[in-house]
């Protein structure tokens, strides 16, 4: 354990945002937020509670996702009402039905910026931590933030997970996060600011890193930060408007920052893993489940966790020239329209379609169990998303397994949970 007087990333961001020189874990502060992320479907309800007030229309981002296009009349009405209010309030950063999942759009459109404090009315807002933003999900207090641009925080203790070594072929960042949940528990980072770091992290593509911050909330974390390196800064500079670039203040931890706990994970020792029903921490090797013979009715390649270009690409590599198992349906839902377009251009979607995949427009899709592929009683699904809680994707009597895009694709092919490594040699 390191003991020091320096500050962690969360402490630095919260100190700046609350106008203090320094903060300590346990301090309660009122902090100005830099950006608020909202979803279209809940927008009107929150905006009405805020009584038509918005502290700064430039700092609010609204994405129409989760139930897009609307599968119920009530969702359609909520969207229509949101559009009307958005206009009245003069919000400009609005992304309509079909643009994709809010967290992915938030990153792609340059709203996730290192050093900023972000709150969002969705639990996976922490995804922006991959770019160095202290970001977290809220819900009930959203109208207060919309009106005043601030909220309270208890400065969290920080923990650090250092990734050493190099990922073996067929093993991905999703397997790393499942390993952590399975080994250290789903509350390993409860209430804490989690910092991912280490040489193996810096060797990962940005898309792979995003998975680690996305699933911080499944480890209980308040923030799931990563110190920004050149890869991150390049991504951000390409997306943040010229005029805003000067105000970027990337934050890195002080060398003598204090961490309550430091975990080291040698990723070279990992194998493809699967979280079994009904919890993210119930983790087994894909190979062991393959030996058991777990039949799969639905394979879902989607969600804000693993449905970016590299995920679709790896699935296409496994499925190209082959056919999805006749007893299994494979649903592919790209994380955003930009991902969709790029995958289309590169022939990835064509390969997946030829293999028998159902390709949908970009949205949360089957992940939250609202539309686009609900599970029936007793059905088994393997999904690339972040949660396998009972009832998450439809029937409470269904079984959900979580895995990397590669494991999902291999399982779709075999009609049972399968270790993907044999297709990637």
């Amino acid at each position, binding site marked *: 354990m390191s003991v020091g007087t320096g500050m962690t990333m969360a402490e630095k961001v919260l100190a700046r945002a609350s106008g203090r020189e320094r903060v300590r874990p346990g301090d309660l502060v009122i902090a100005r937020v830099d950006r608020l992320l909202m979803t279209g479907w809940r927008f009107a309800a929150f905006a009405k509670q*805020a009584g038509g007030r918005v502290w700064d229309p430039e700092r609010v981002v609204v994405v129409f996702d989760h139930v897009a296009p609307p*599968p119920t009349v009530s969702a359609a009405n909520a969207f229509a009402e949101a559009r009307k209010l958005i206009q009245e309030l003069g919000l400009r950063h609005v992304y309509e039905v079909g643009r994709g999942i809010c967290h992915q759009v938030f990153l792609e459109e340059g709203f996730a910026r290192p050093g900023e404090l972000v709150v969002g009315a969705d639990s996976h807002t922490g995804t922006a931590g991959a770019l160095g933003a202290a970001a977290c999900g809220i819900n009930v207090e959203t109208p*207060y933030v919309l009106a005043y641009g601030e909220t309270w925080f208890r400065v969290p203790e920080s923990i650090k997970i250092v990734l050493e070594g190099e990922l073996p072929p067929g093993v991905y960042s999703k397997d790393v996060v499942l390993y952590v949940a399975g080994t250290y528990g789903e509350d390993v980072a*409860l209430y804490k600011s989690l910092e991912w770091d280490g040489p193996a992290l810096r060797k990962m593509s940005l898309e792979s890193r995003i998975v680690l911050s996305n699933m911080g909330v499944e480890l209980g974390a308040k923030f799931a930060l990563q110190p920004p390196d050149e890869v991150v800064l390049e991504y951000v500079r390409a997306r943040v408007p010229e005029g805003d670039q000067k105000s970027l203040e990337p934050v890195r931890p002080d060398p003598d920052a204090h961490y309550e706990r430091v975990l080291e994970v040698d990723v070279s020792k990992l194998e493809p893993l699967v979280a079994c029903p009904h919890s993210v921490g119930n983790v087994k090797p894909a190979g062991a489940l393959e030996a058991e013979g777990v039949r799969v009715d639905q394979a879902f390649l989607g969600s804000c966790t693993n449905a970016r270009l590299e995920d679709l690409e790896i699935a296409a590599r496994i499925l190209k020239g082959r056919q999805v198992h006749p007893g299994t349906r494979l649903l592919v839902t790209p994380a955003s329209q930009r991902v969709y377009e790029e995958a289309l251009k590169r022939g990835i979607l064509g390969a997946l379609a030829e293999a028998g995949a159902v390709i949908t427009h970009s949205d949360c899709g089957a992940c939250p169990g609202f539309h686009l592929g609900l599970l029936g009683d007793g059905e088994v699904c393997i999904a690339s998303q972040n949660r396998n809680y009972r009832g998450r994707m439809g029937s409470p009597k269904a079984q959900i397994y979580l895995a990397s895009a590669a494991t999902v694709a291999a399982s779709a092919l075999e009609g049972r949970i399968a270790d993907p490594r044999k297709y990637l040699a």
Partner: protein
Amino acid sequence: MDKPTETTWKYRGRAWVFGDHINTDLILPSEAMYGKVPEDEVKRYVFRAIRPEFAERVRPGDLVVAGVNFGCGSSRPAARVLKELGIACVLAESFSRIFFRNAINLGYPVLVCPGITRAVRDGDELEVEPLEGRVRDLTTGEELQAEPLPPFVRQLVEAGGLLELLRRGERLRA
């Protein structure tokens, strides 16, 4: 932040005991969201997958007792629906942070109470004074001490939560 006068801050009711990592998909299932069922029926889906009798049998004043990481998962307003069902207070070994925040910001007391799942049986009669963190199991006579809410959080709960401040046009003060 003024204290609302109508609240007594002492509750007595039956315990409904749950295990660890009870997530918000179990508390407020997606089956009942996004307008799939009428607004006034949503409450009937609470805990349906694990305790189908809950919504029918729960009485105002009852208490939910749970293990670690209660309310993990989606940020949906699970605390609100428990409050609407009349659950006076939730006591757990630990809470997920979004659930905890949602509750506090609604002015709804939720207490971290180490050892509660070992001490309390399903159906026990409990008496809880949330602001002081005092918990008494009237069935067994055992007394437990929950972690007291930090002063700032306690004030926020007493004031009725962040939304109540917003409604009154007030703001947080450090």
